[in-house]
């Protein structure tokens, strides 16, 4: 196991989020340490995307506390999250097909020399970055359109690393990828952990989760439904937590509080 810090990089305590009449998140708690991969799983509509968007600053939270390295912070805008050191790689790739790999990596934060794009410096840094992450692509000067789905996903993840984030959120990075390509992306996730980044991985694929995650946090109907150590938990236990066919401390406690309220 990789070294895990004492203070979590990010901690959510009692986070709730409403959209009009819909209670999307209720009293959610989550902790992520540096050098740790936490898989966030749950059925469709369980609140995974909403939770990620609250962390990324797309949707500000209604109640609860977000703690960053032990101190409470407010994350109201995507910019706030980026300043803290949170990078998000969304499911639909945010890359431009017509621009080459270097151009995409530095899109929106081009390196300039005397007001002119410094292509040499950008290419050098891009090659350094891709080498550190052991990402292998045919050339850094070919358009994104020429890359396979897996290669594109690795470029998208590499791009999020340019800001040296402490926490990387990957939203379904292996959806729609083939076997070999999925392996490439999972390798990359492990390398992120080795480099001491905290990673939140959203996935529907239990095999992927078991392969790379240290912990699995299950969401069900907008509430926590258990956090499991991957090494000591069977796939069936996780799946039953996802579907709600489970009986554990968390659900019992939840049931009891609900019962008290109704009395």
């Amino acid at each position, binding site marked *: 196991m990789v070294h895990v810090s004492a203070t979590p990089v990010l901690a959510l305590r009692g986070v709730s989020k409403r959209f009009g009449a819909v209670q999307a998140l209720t009293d959610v708690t989550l902790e992520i340490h540096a050098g740790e991969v936490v898989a966030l799983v749950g059925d469709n509509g369980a609140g995974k995307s909403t939770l990620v968007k609250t962390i990324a600053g797309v949707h500000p939270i209604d109640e609860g506390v977000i703690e960053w390295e032990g101190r409470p912070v407010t994350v109201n805008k995507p910019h706030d999250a980026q300043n803290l050191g949170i990078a998000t790689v969304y499911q639909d790739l945010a*890359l431009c097909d017509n621009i080459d790999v270097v151009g995409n990596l530095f899109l929106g934060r081009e390196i300039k020399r005397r007001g002119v794009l410094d292509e040499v410096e950008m*290419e050098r840094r891009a090659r350094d970055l891709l080498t550190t992450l052991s990402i292998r692509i045919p*050339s850094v*000067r070919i358009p994104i359109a020429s890359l*396979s789905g897996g290669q594109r996903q690795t470029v998208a993840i590499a791009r999020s690393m340019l800001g040296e984030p402490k926490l990387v959120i990957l939203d379904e990075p292996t959806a729609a990828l083939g076997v070999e390509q999925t392996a490439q992306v999972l390798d990359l996730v492990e390398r992120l952990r080795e480099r001491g980044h905290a990673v939140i991985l959203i996935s529907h694929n239990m095999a992927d989760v078991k392969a790379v995650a240290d912990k699995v946090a299950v969401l069900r109907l907008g509430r926590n439904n258990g956090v499991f150590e991957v090494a000591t938990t069977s796939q069936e236990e996780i799946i039953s937590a996802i579907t709600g066919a489970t009986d554990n401390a968390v659900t019992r406690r939840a049931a009891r509080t609900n019962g008290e309220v109704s009395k």
Partner: protein
Amino acid sequence: MSTDKASTKPQKTATVENTEAAAAAVTAVDPRLLVREQGLAGYLDEFKRKMRAGELGSIPVVVGLIVICVVFQSLNSAFLSAENLSNITITMVGTGMISVGIVFVLLLGEIDLSVGSVSGAASALAAVLAVNQGWPEWLAVLAAIAGGAAFGALHGFFFAVLGAPAFAVTLAGLLFWLGFMLQTLGENGTINLDSDGLIGQLTTYHFSDIAAAYGLAAVVTAVFFLTGFLGNRRREAAGVPSRPMSDLVLRTVLLAVVSFAAAFMYNQYKGLPLATVIFLVFLVATDFLLRRTSYGRKVFALGGSVEASRRAGINVTAIRISVFAISGGFAAMGGLFLASKIASANQSAGAGDLLMNAIAAAVIGGTSLFGGRGRTWNALLGVMVIVSIQYGLQLESIAEPVKYMITAAVLLTTVVIDSVTRKTQKTAGRA
């Protein structure tokens, strides 16, 4: 197009390249470097590979230009005369300037149908300010260009802020600025310009000293070689792959041949035309803007994926408005050149096939209609094709209707070539 669909086809070639790269990865990550290291032979290999993959670039247009020259020269030996060629390069500047603006809009994947009317409105504005209001001509010219840019920015506002389709907004613009022009010109309908004034001189002034044309050719060649050479040195110093020296020398020699031949041709007639110099300056400047600055990178990004650009923190609205303003500004400049050619601003300015020719020139030159691919040099090549055909047919005294049909056939051919090469590129994973 969804990324899934696009990625299914290219996969095969990508994995092939990938295994090649993997084999070569011990020494270098970039297979391009390995190809290039073989010098000129490697360069030819690369060229052949590009041809097979459908990366034709400007080659179809250049071949087309050569065919046009051969055909018209065989029909009439006056076609390749210095006088005719000189006139072609002056006449094409008006439409060419408008076409440069169109390239910007096409890079976004949008269209600007108002450029013809805006060019007419700008020339009317300049004429009224200079002749009727007695403004100094340079001020009237600046006002007309600023006016064109403002008209364009207005289209951009409706498109980018209010979300109306650019097609519809600029179609409304086409009608509105036509009306604006007729209103500005007033009852007479024609305002004659001073042919010795600034606007009049735009297309009539020639640098008669033969040193001017040769000097410009020499400077252009030297600057091209030096920037390439210094760029290569920087790349080598930074340890990133650079083009081989033979490649740079070959390009420089080609450029030198073309520019000195052009200089020789101009000196056989009246000398280097001012219009051509201005056009070249704007082509170099816009090419620099698009390919070497972060503004240009943003324009290309918007043409590739609006959502990706937004997430990268690009101000989509501002870029869109600025591109339409650039289109309007270049339309106004084109209008001034067209007015200079006839030494007047009249009611027929910006009408007829001007709009279609400007768009056709950009597309014939190789700018993609689907956004994200193209260069402003495309406008030069495309407008050369269109104006050469017009002049050639004029020499043969072929009537106007036939000219339209032939220009249409050329445009259609280009679009077909574009579509076919795009298909080839897709199977080669380069679309």
